[in-house]
């Protein structure tokens, strides 16, 4: 008589009547002496009998062909190994990478330089409202969208060659320039303007794009 307990597959074979007579006799002798195997038979048989008797209700979709089981490509790939084997492969791969990384000499590369200047500012941008595009007369008012935390704005005016003509500071989200200043904007010329925002400490916090306007 087999001393070792029977596998779940063998137990299923017995329950489902797939065991040959000789093996069945041995198995029966065994479970007369083995409460563990007998308990396992009872548990598995209960499920098996429930499936046999209630199967038409449980697997209605499968029986009517509404649900079919075909292996997907991913499933086929996963099926190449068991979950335990996949776990072993992954662990080996991680170990391999760790060995490679540990063995690689530390190469000192040049530290990347990050800098902040007037053209490169992290944070918000300022959206300019007017003047933009073609203007009938030289503009007297420059407007942009207000930022929440900014204390002061500086408005820069450039000519078509990008030469700074003038700059003004204000705490408002607009700037009105005097007619005297306005005289330097002559018809038939193109100009650019830009706004920069500064915090209380004088730190540059936001910069707008340069916008162009043309006076007819």
């Amino acid at each position: 008589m087999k001393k070792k307990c029977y596998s779940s597959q063998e137990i299923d074979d017995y329950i489902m009547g797939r065991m040959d007579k000789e093996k069945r006799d041995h198995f029966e002798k065994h479970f007369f002496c083995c409460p563990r195997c007998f308990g396992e038979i009872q548990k598995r048989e209960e499920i098996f009998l429930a499936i046999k008797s209630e199967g038409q209700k449980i697997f209605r979709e499968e029986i009517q062909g509404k649900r079919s089981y075909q292996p997907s490509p991913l499933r086929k790939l996963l099926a190449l190994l068991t979950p335990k084997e996949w776990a072993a492969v992954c662990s080996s791969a991680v170990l391999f990478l760790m060995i490679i990384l540990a063995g690689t000499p530390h190469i000192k590369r040049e530290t990347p330089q990050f800098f902040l200047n007037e053209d490169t500012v992290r944070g918000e941008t300022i959206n300019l409202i007017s003047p933009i595009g073609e203007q009938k007369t030289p503009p007297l008012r420059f407007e942009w969208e207000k930022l929440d935390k900014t204390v002061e704005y500086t408005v820069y005016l450039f000519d078509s060659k990008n030469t700074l003509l003038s700059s003004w500071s204000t705490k408002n989200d607009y700037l009105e320039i005097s007619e005297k200043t306005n005289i330097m904007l002559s018809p038939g010329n193109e100009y650019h303007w830009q706004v920069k925002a500064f915090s209380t400490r004088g730190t540059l916090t936001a910069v707008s794009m340069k916008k162009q306007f043309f006076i007819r």
Partner: protein
Amino acid sequence: MNFKDSKSIDLNKVYKEFRPIVSYKVRKTLGTYNPDWEDIVNEILTNVFEKLKAGDFRGDSAIGTFIYTITHRRIIDYIRQKSKVLRYIPEVNPFPDPVDNVEQKERAEKIAGLIKKLKPKYREILYLYYYKGLTRKEVAEQLGIPPRRVSELVNYSHKLLKKMLIK
């Protein structure tokens, strides 16, 4: 249960442990619908006790093997008697029908409800393996997975159902 000989045997323990096993074996062999199964189980157990009291069990083998032998012989005798009367043995239902009483029917319905709640990968295994009666190799071929994986999924399904039944 280990006993060296007839004198050290506790008959109550023997009855408690072996009645379900003997009943199972008798019903499995003769069929659940056989009206004589309970009488045969009682006869077997009575015979076992008589032999134990008479000191016929000398402890050469396990007590389970001793009881198995008595059970096996009694079942063969019964089949022979019936064969003489009927000239043939009525076809034995290989699986006892769980619908034979309300309690079992309710239990089967409960299990069915739990199986419906399982993930498709477990349902499909139970469907192909138990309901359709395919072998592990056939299930493996149909699903494109190794036979070993079929066993793992079947066993895990049992484990899940066991947990759900306890809840």
